[in-house]
Each structure stands twice: as structure tokens, then as C-alpha cells.
């Protein structure tokens, strides 16, 4: 969620984070088709074939494959995070407090793994760390 916001800001756009909870199109190009596809693929719903076709027509085949890859790997990453019970990263508790509250993310089951009582100052590292920590 935080990466969605900061990457949008980096290209001079203001994302609508409610897209992440299935409302609207996120104010992102082809956002509605991307959200529809992400939902259908993740849920395995009957809408998936049509959602695939709609997305392919909207963004082309290469971008469709990239979207499918993102769906796939994030279905792995969320299971990694929640099966291991990792807390959200240092500094993010405060920096995400506002949008977490607005979007209802604190109600997600995975919030049990993070102490949300502190960190309201918004302090924390500004940059994005390496995935490998180097």
C-alpha cells in the first residue's frame, strides 16, 4: 500500500488508495481492469476468463503477463508474511497509520502480528530498503 502511494507520487500522480480495497480504479491508468483481474484471479471466481480478456484488450499481452506474475507472486508473499507472523517494518507503523485507519486495514487478521500501540509519530526510514537487506 505504501509502495503504491510513493511510486505514484514519484511520477507526479496522486493515487486513490481505496482502489486497493476494491473501490474505483485507484486513479491509475487501466486501474479498473487491473483490479477486476486481480480480484478474479485471487478469488478464482467465474469472472476470471472475462477479466483476462478485458485486461489483455486494455493493456496488451506483455503487460497482461506482468499483471499475472504480480498476482502470482503476491499470493505467495502474503502467505509468507502471515504464516511466519512477521510484523510490519520499523517506521511503517507510524507512516501507515492514517491510511490504515481510513481503509480499515487494522481490522485485517494479520494486524495481530504488529504492535500498533506505538509509532504514531510517522518516524522511520524514508527510502526503500533492498529486499535482501544489503
Amino acid at each position, binding site marked *: 500500500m505504501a*509502495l*503504491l502511494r*510513493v*511510486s*505514484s507520487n*514519484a*511520477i507526479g500522480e496522486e493515487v486513490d*488508495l481505496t*482502489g*486497493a480495497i*476494491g473501490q474505483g480504479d485507484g486513479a*491509475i*491508468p487501466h*486501474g479498473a481492469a487491473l*483490479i477486476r483481474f486481480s*480480484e478474479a484471479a*485471487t*478469488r*478464482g471466481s467465474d469472472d*476470471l476468463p472475462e477479466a483476462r480478456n478485458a485486461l489483455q484488450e486494455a493493456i496488451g*499481452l*506483455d*503487460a497482461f*503477463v506482468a*499483471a*499475472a*506474475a*504480480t*498476482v*502470482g*507472486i*503476491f*499470493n*505467495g*508473499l*502474503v*502467505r*509468507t*508474511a*502471515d*504464516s*511466519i*507472523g*512477521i*510484523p*510490519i517494518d520499523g517506521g511503517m507503523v507510524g507512516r501507515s497509520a492514517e491510511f490504515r485507519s481510513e481503509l480499515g*486495514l*487494522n481490522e*485485517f*487478521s*494479520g*494486524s*495481530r*502480528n*504488529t504492535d500498533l500501540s506505538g509509532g504514531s509519530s510517522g518516524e522511520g526510514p524514508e527510502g*526503500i*530498503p*533492498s*529486499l535482501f*537487506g544489503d
Partner: protein
Amino acid sequence: MTIFDYSLHGHEVPEVIAQAHRAAWARIAGPGSWWTGSQRVEVARVAREARLQRNDPPWLRDGISAASECLPERVVDMVRRIAADVHSIDQAWAGVCIEELGDAAYVEICAVTVCITAIDAFAEALGVPLEELPQALPGEPDGSRPEGTADVGAFVPLMEPFAGPNVGRALSLAPADNAAFFGLVGSMYAMADFQELVWSDRPLNRPQVELVAARVSAINECFY
């Protein structure tokens, strides 16, 4: 026959993704530190089966696929929960599993489950058949457990110190499986360019990718 040949189904999938999928398949098939190749392939089978039934209520799934000849019942329950009901996992449940299996053995099961889930979810999203599961390789688990881990507030110890995000070290008690999983992450999402906010040479720009990521995470009720 080459496995993960997505061109057979009319898709031009970057070779780096297919290679990472093949590497993960090979890793699943071999013995790990705590589980044999046969057990790991069975974990993959159970994870696949559970995920395909994720829209059915759990009480309907029970009669269909609980049996597994080479895995303890606890492991079957674990795999099915991670694959199909990950939002239901809490510290108490994980604690029972870890107490029974050991922390590194628990993490190895998690790692195999998330690898096959990522690969299968990609195939399903793409609209291609799921790859046939690999043949288990012979060999015994070596019982190795990495040094340099500490309690950082997760269910199990993680590599410490570590300067990156916690997800990058979540599977650190199963280093070879963690490497296979991050091979998938690097090919399907980002690796060297993870720290770059602007992706100008990709078919999707970064906000588009992050929108998909955020929606998938929210559907799974992932707080991280």
C-alpha cells in the same frame, strides 16, 4: 519435454520467470533440511489441492482431501491452512505447530507451500494448465539449521541483523528454500529495481504493479 514452457499455451512469458519456476520445482523435489523429497512434493500436492478448493467452506473440503500417507496430520492441516485460509493463522495456532514440528521444519513447510502457491496462482491468472508436480528425488534431510537468527517479533526467529524488509528474511530458517522463493520474487516482481520508484522499461509502470499487489494483499487480509 521442457517444463514451464508457457509458449505451448500461446504466452510469451519472460524466460527469467520460466527459469525461476524450474528452479523452484527442482528445489521442491529434493530433500530439504527437515523433510524428504517425497514429503516436500506431497506438501506441494496438498497445497495445490487446498488452494483449488479455496472457495469451498472448510467443512466441505475435509471429506475430499485430508489424507496424506507420508505427512503428519499436523502438516497437512498446516499446508491447507496456509494455502487456502491464510487469514486464519494466528500466533497460538502457529505456536502449536512449531512446538510439535520444530521452528525450522515449520518454516520449510511454509516455504514449499508459498513457492507452489505463487507458481500455481500465476498459471491460473494466465489461464494455462498447472504444471505436473515434480518427481521426488532421493536423499535424506540433513537436519541443518542456520546460525545468526534472533527473535524479532515473528512466530519464529529470523536472520538478525538484516537491513531489508521483514519479508526478505521471513524464511531465513530455510535458506535454500528462501533462495528459491526469492528467485520467484525477483523474476515475477522486482529484485535489483525494487528500490526504484519509477519503472520506465517495463510493460506495467510501478503504480500499476503496486495496485495489483495491494489488491491481492487486501483480498487475503494481509496486514504486512
